């Protein structure tokens, strides 16, 4: 009780406060893009704020590769809030006083929704490496089933960064009548060869770990910690910028001395940091999920079935778009966002594009940035005003 009071006081006025995850078993069959049908699936999700009386103020938050449904607020006893707490809450850009905000852990991930760590009903064993391959459209379809369950006919906005932005774009093509706005942050219509290369190195790192056991590590009570940690370290480097790493770590030493005549081993701060990040990640993320979702990223190609013409693809959309990029993001560079924006303009869709100056690389979409907060806030404030005026 005292803890709850402390948490509430700490974040008075800016946090959604204590939150509890919810779970729903979607009993409708979900036919995946690969042809396999999941007869039912479980979704873990969280909601913040209240649905208005005509159910028109709902915003869907789409998470990225390693994200989950805990986007904002605190779990009881936790000191750290959800992954997008900076942007979701009362008076924040995605304002829980005005919107009903839904964030779902997507299938194939490992935070409570059906995925490789869930039991395969056919075998009674975890799916492991046998979990069917997924596409972003499968996530969208599963999110649509949750939307039905929540009695929402049309999202006021679908919002996401990175792979989350890919889902928002896919929503706009697959179910144009079911969203009014798509907010696409630090994203791309398809990965570059360099991006796929980084993902493959990460997958190879996982598979090279003897404890991976061809993906059936859970059955053998093993976890490929080293492989997954290495995969994360590679990914992590690509989410930061050279400039930021220089500022944050430089060549600072954690241990040892570079003077001649010293024999003790030297450890740079960046080494220590990366090892820590990798180890921490391997404690809570599932290796099969990492492989599955990085492949989903690689396979994503928004315009593939539109003859590789993004303009033809976006002609399907009826919603309005906000596209945001970050100057030092080299994994999903501003050029990718410009491609999205140009295709939207050529397709005659309403779009705004904001290029945020930031040193934080791809990770910038998760971090505090006054201009980013202001731009997203202004855009969604205009939307909230329209909803509140009943337009």
């Amino acid at each position, binding site marked *: 009780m005292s803890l709850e009071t402390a948490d509430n006081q700490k974040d008075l006025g800016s946090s959604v406060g204590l939150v509890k995850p919810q779970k729903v078993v979607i009993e409708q069959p979900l036919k995946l893009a690969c042809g396999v049908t999941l007869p039912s699936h479980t979704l873990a999700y969280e909601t913040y704020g209240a649905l208005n009386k005509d159910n028109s103020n709902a915003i869907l938050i789409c998470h990225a590769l390693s994200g989950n449904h805990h986007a904002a607020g605190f779990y009881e006893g936790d000191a750290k809030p959800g992954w997008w707490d900076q942007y979701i809450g009362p008076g924040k850009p995605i304002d829980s006083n005005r919107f009903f905000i839904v964030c779902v852990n997507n299938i194939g991930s490992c935070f409570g929704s059906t995925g490789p760590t869930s039991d395969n009903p056919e075998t009674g064993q975890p799916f492991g490496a046998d979990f069917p391959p997924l596409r972003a459209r499968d996530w969208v379809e599963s999110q649509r089933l949750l939307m039905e369950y929540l009695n929402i006919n049309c999202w006021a906005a679908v919002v996401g960064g990175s792979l989350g932005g890919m889902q928002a774009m896919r929503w706009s093509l697959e179910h144009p009548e079911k969203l009014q706005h798509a907010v696409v942050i630090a994203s791309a219509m398809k990965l570059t060869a360099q991006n796929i290369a980084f993902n493959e190195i990460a997958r190879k790192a996982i598979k090279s770990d003897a404890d991976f056991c061809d993906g059936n590590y859970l059955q053998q009570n093993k976890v490929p910690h080293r492989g997954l940690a290495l995969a994360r370290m590679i990914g992590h480097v690509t989410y930061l910028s050279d400039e930021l790493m220089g500022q944050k770590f430089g060549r600072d030493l954690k241990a040892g001395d570079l003077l001649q005549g010293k024999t003790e081993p030297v450890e740079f701060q960046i080494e220590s940091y990366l090892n820590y990040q990798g180890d921490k990640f391997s404690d809570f993320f599932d290796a099969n999920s990492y492989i599955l979702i990085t492949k989903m990223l690689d396979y994503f190609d928004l315009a593939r079935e539109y003859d590789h013409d993004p303009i033809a693809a976006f002609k399907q959309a009826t919603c309005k778009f906000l596209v945001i990029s970050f100057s030092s993001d080299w994994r999903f560079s501003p050029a990718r966002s410009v491609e999205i924006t*140009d295709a939207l303009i050529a397709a005659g869709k309403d779009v*705004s594009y904001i290029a945020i100056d930031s040193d934080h690389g791809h990770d910038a979409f998760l971090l505090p940035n006054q201009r980013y907060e*202001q731009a997203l806030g202004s855009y969604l404030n205009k939307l909230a005003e329209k909803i509140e005026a009943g337009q």
Partner: protein
Amino acid sequence: MNHNIDFIEQWIEPGSRVLDVGCGDGALLASLRDQRKVLGYGLEIDPKSISRCLEKGVNVIEQDLNKGLKNFADQSFDTVLMTHTLQALRYPHLVLDEILRIGGKGIVTFPNFGNWRTRAYLGFRGRMPVTKQLAYQWYDTPNIHFFTYADFEALCKQRNINILHRQFLAHGLPDTLLKSVWPNLFTETAVYHLSR
């Protein structure tokens, strides 16, 4: 001095596609959207102006005009607008070409440096003019080209640009009366409707 240029709405077809190059706070685009139902986009580089556009629900694209407009296809807009920006660009003549490559028609406004106030300022004080319309010191100004409407028309002729309409704007008396007699002396802002 900001002149009302609402009259340019008559030059823009209802429901047409409009690109406002250097759209500022998006007021003109918001008005064109509401009055003429245009599908409009504004290009802007200033963060504060971009925020104002977002607040109005105007489509705004963050883009540096000095890096070109190559991302826009030939004749992809009915009208390309540029208000009070030409004098601030590195190569105004190339931007004019771009405007008429992207748009079927162009609308351009700029401060007329031939106005008597700027002439008097330079002529009598011997200093570069700092007026309401050109409110910057010479060393710290976005306005890097100074030209009169006559210079502009000479450029149009040289580059085979047709002038469909032009309007000369001034404020106060006797300027508003005298601008029809001595346009270059009394015009503060020149507004041109162009095609190629």
